Structures are given as C-alpha cells and as structure tokens.
C-alpha cells in the first residue's frame, strides 16, 4: 500500500497534535494561528500535487484517492484556513484553550477530508463522528447559557441522527453482507428486480441513511437544530458549520449514493425522487421561515436550510441522469464551492460588525453603509450571491444546477426553486436596505483586524471570480466529478 496517498490527512493530524503540544510551552499564543495555518497549507500542497493523478483506492478499497475526494479536501482546507483567520480576534480574547480551539478546528477538517474519501460504511461512520464530536465541542466553546444549550441540542440530535444512520447501514449490510461501497453495488446489481422489490429491508436501509445524512446537510425535516445551534455557537464556528459540515455531508451522500446505489436505474430514480421532494420542501420552508427573523445569524441559518434545498436539486439530478452523465455532479460541486465562499464571506463580515456592535440583530445594522462602507459592501456582495444575482458566484451556481435539472426532466422542481429564489430576495435585500438606507445609530467607525480583512477579501475575491469567469472552475468541477469506480 502506498502511504504517500494518505499524506494530506497525516499532515493535518500531525499539525493538530503539534498545536496542542505547542500550546503548553509557548507564551505568545499568536503562533498557534501561524502553525495551524501552516498545517492547512502543507496539507493543501500535498493535495494539489496529487491532483489529476489516476483514481485509485488505498487501505483495501476503504479510502478512495480520486479527483472527487481531492476537490473536497481542497475545499475543506480552504474553508478551515478562512475560519482560522476569521477566529483570530475572537480566540485572542480567550484566557485558556486557544490551542484546543485550533486543534479541534484542524481535527474536524481532518474528519471532513476523510468523509469525502472513505468508501466503506464503518470508516464513513467513524469519519463522520470525528467531525461531529469536534464540532459539538466547538459549538459549546463559549460556555455561556446560549452556547451550552446550542451544543447540547446539537449533541443530542446529532446522536439520534447517528443512531438512525447506523441503523440504515446495518440494514444495508444485513441485506448485502458487505460494507465496502463497490461490493455493495455489485451485490445489489446481481439481484433481480423482483428480488429487491420483495425485500423492503434494503429500501428501508437507504431511507434511514438519507435521514442520517440529511441531518448533516440540514435537509428538512431534519433541520430543527439549525437555527438554535447557529445562533448560540461562536460566529466563526457557525460559519464553519454552515459551509464545511454541509459540504462534507453532500460529499458523502454523493459518494455513497452514486457508487453504491447508482445502478440499477430504477433504484437511482427512486432516491432521486426522494431528494427532489426533500429539496422542494427544504427550499420552501427555509425561505418562508427566514422572512420574519430578526437575528441575522438565525436568518442565515434558515437561509442555509433553503440553500441545502437548492443543493438537493443537484442530488436529484444525479439520481435522474444516467450514471455516465456528469452534469449533476459537476454543477453540485460548483454550487458547493460558490456557496462556501459566499457564506464564509457573509459570516466574516458579520463577525467584524458584531465585534463592535455586540449584537446580531438586523435592526442594529442600520446605517452600516456609512459606518463601515467596505464591510457593508462585502456583505452586500455575499447577500446578492446568496440570492443568485450576477455578477456574483451564486448566479452561475444556480444557473448550472437548474439547467442540469431541466435537462433531466425536473422542470417542476426548477420552477419551485426559481419562485423560492424570488422569495429569498426579499429577506436578503432587507438587510441590504437597512445597511445602506437606514440611519446610523452612531457615527463611530467599525474597526476590523487584519486577519478578518484578509479572510473577507479572499472570500469576496472568490465570489467575484466564480461569478465572472466560471468556466475555469466549472472545468475543474467536471474533472472532479469523476469518481473512483471499484
């Protein structure tokens, strides 16, 4: 076996341990940020070197090393780097546990990288738990009542979701006798249609797995934790949850459903339909409930439920298209990248503003256009991208994902999605209106630190690049859509 292919993960684990040990001996905690970022950069370097190589699998086909996994690894590393930058201000206020904070961010990123690459049910489950446990702790890091409540809620609901997922995996294992995704696929394809129809155990297993993964991506009706956890968690961690944990959930769903349940065609049509229905409910509920929200973190929480709905349109397309067709997968990858940059940008701006205001209420953002023009401009760009208007990335992302869905006969779903985009414009633009047209409560400027400004400008640059020259990134996504076939 070739351990070189495991280097990105090994690097990140090593740096996480170094950060913990370094925390014991050094006095100037600022170095922890540098070391954490160095770990992310080195791991990203190894990942980039491996890009474009032939798809293969290590650890007895348990860990796939293909462009799909590498794409997600890079995405998670980029998100982790931006989150580390965005939390610099916030962490420097801690008297203790700065090392633990950064180590947990790195470990959860490691868990997500493994989630994108593992191709075997037991490893998938453990990787998912590694991510979840790190995130449960990070959500409760503030230790005030709200943060603790958020962490406890996330832990309890997450544990239930894990149990449901395990139940589904156990049923699939009981039915096929295999845990490796490729072998599961072979076992299912070897069955006759009547053989599968006579066995509801497999279908039940698949449905339970969708429920378990649905919790991670905040699909309705498994979204109940989202608003409370987003509101209570430290804002950088809210940003992290809203993009990275969601992207990891989509990575694992794509891998499992495409490689294990992708064939025969009727099975993929079945789960494609299930995702289409979940998408329609998710978009509608997320957008409608976001309208009356007064807290911007809660509003973005519901917005992320709606965005998960748009993303599931992509999953439905994957289910409806023939296995060789990459439109569904590549547009989903593009949407995830664009959504990650956009939401990170929005949350970074919110961190900068709430550092000064000490409030997350939308009404307090009044007149922000005068007090902090650049922050307000960046937030406006991100909100426009979330609506899906040009020139921001969100426009191209929605364009790709919707046109793929129309090509594969999901016109009804796209109609619902477009109506929803119009509804969502109302609450996103309300924030923009309050910022630019409202009267400022005071004339005081809103300062922001260098690290925050760096994170914000990187995200906004990404949003603009993806919106203006989407072709190049789309080509990358098309290369990344090729998954290892066992």
């Amino acid at each position, binding site marked *: 076996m070739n351990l070189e292919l495991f280097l990105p993960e090994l690097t990140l*684990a090593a740096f*996480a*341990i170094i950060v*913990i040990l370094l925390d014991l001996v050094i006095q100037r905690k600022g170095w922890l940020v540098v070391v954490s970022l160095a770990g992310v950069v080195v791991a990203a370097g190894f990942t980039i070197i491996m890009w474009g190589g032939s798809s293969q699998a290590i*650890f*007895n086909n*348990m*860990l796939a090393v293909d462009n799909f996994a590498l794409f997600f690894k890079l995405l998670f590393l980029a998100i982790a780097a931006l989150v580390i930058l965005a939390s610099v201000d916030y962490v420097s206020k*801690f*008297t*203790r*546990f700065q090392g*633990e904070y950064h*180590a*947990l961010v790195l*470990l*959860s990123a*490691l*868990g997500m990288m*493994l989630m994108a690459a*593992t191709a*075997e049910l*037991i*490893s998938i*489950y*453990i*990787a998912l*738990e*590694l991510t979840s*446990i*790190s995130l*449960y*702790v990070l959500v*409760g*890091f503030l*230790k005030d009542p709200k943060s603790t409540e958020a962490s406890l809620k996330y832990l309890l609901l997450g544990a239930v979701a894990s149990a449901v997922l395990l139940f589904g995996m156990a*049923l699939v294992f*009981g*039915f*096929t*006798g295999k845990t490796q995704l490729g072998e599961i696929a072979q076992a299912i394809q070897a069955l006759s249609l009547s*053989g599968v129809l*006579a*066995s*509801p*155990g*497999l*279908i*039940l297993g698949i449905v339970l797995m969708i429920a378990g993964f649905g919790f991670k991506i905040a699909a309705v009706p498994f979204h109940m934790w989202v608003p409370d956890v987003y509101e209570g968690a430290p804002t950088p961690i809210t940003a992290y949850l809203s993009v990275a944990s969601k992207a990891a959930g989509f990575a694992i769903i794509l891998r499992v459903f495409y490689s294990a349940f992708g064939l025969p065609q009727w099975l993929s049509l079945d789960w494609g339909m299930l995702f289409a229905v979940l998408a329609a409910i998710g978009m509608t509920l997320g957008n409608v409930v976001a309208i009356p929200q007064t807290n911007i973190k809660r509003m973005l929480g519901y917005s992320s439920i709606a965005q998960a709905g748009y993303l599931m349109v992509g999953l439905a397309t994957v289910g409806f298209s023939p296995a060789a067709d990459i439109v569904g997968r590549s547009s989903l990858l593009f949407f995830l990248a664009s959504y990650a940059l956009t939401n990170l940008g929005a949350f970074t701006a919110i961190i900068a503003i709430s550092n000064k205001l000490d409030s997350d209420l939308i009404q307090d953002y009044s007149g922000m256009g005068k007090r902090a023009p650049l922050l307000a401009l960046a937030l406006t760009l991100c909100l426009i991208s979330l609506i899906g208007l040009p020139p921001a990335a969100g426009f191209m992302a929605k364009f790709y994902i919707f046109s793929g869905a129309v090509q594969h006969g999901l016109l009804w779903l796209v109609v619902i999605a477009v109506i929803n985009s119009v509804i969502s414009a109302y609450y996103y633009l309300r924030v923009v209106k309050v910022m630019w047209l409202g009267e400022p409560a005071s004339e005081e400027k809103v300062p922001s630190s260098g690290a925050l400004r760096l994170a914000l400008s990187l995200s906004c640059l990404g949003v603009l690049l993806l919106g203006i020259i989407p072709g190049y990134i789309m080509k990358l996504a098309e290369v990344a859509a090729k998954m290892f076939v066992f």
Partner: protein
Amino acid sequence: MIGLDIAFWVLAIVGIIAALAVVLLSDVFRAALSLVVCFLAVAGIYITLSADFLAAVQVLIYVGAISVLIILAIMLTREVQRGSPSNRLRIPAFLVAILFLGGMAFAMLNTTWQVSVAPPLEPTTSALAGLLFGEGGFILPVEIAAILLLAAILGAIVLVREK
C-alpha cells in the same frame, strides 16, 4: 437449538421491558438501574449469537463503566427528586414511534437477509484481532477512531475545566 431459542426470547423480552422502564420510569435513578438490566440482556443476546468477545466487552464497558458513570452523574445532580419532566408531545411521539416500529417490523420480516452458513468461531478474539489489525483488515477505521478519541479528550477538557 430449542434451548438457544428460549434463551433468546427470554433475553429479548427482559431487554425490551428494561428499555421501556428506562423511558417510562419517572425516577431517574431507577431508570439508570433499568438501563443496566437492558445492557445485560443485550450482552446475553450476544452470547446466544456466539459473539463471546463482544459480550465480554458489552459487560465491561456498558454494564461496568458507563453505568457507573451515569449513576455518578445522577448522584452529583441536584433536583433528582423531581424526576424526569413530562412532555407535551408525548402522544404524537408515541404514535410516530409505533408507526416506525410497524414499518421496521414489516421490512425485517419480509426481507431475505444474507445468512452465513459458516460454523461460529470459538473464541472470536483472535479472529477479530486479525480482522482489525491484519493484512487486508479494518486498520483505517481503527486509526480514525484513535484520532476521534483524541478529539473527545480535548473536548472533555475544554467543557469541564473553568474557562
């Protein structure tokens, strides 16, 4: 085989009654003790399945360590006397649980499962070790579990110690 069948049904019924007691008893301490009974019944079921190592681990970790931890946590909690609070959503939750149970039972009974015809191993410990650490085994999840434990320990330290 009849002896095994009888043992399975006795253990299953004891396990289910104990599990119901965990949920329904309002005294938290009694609920915790019922949980111990439930864990023991599950360990017994593992024995009827010839999973000797799993049964021993179940007794050591769940019946031993986790139960003690739960009982200690209850002893350190104030207001245990008030019992577990009631819930408005009791009846809807009950209906959903019954529906779920029905669906599960239907699916389980109507499915042809993969059944191994190989004779059970005695003992299973060395075979398990080979599977976990040997060539072609599950070393990847074992290694990820090691990192998972590291994250859990870090989390415990962060959450328990003063800020």
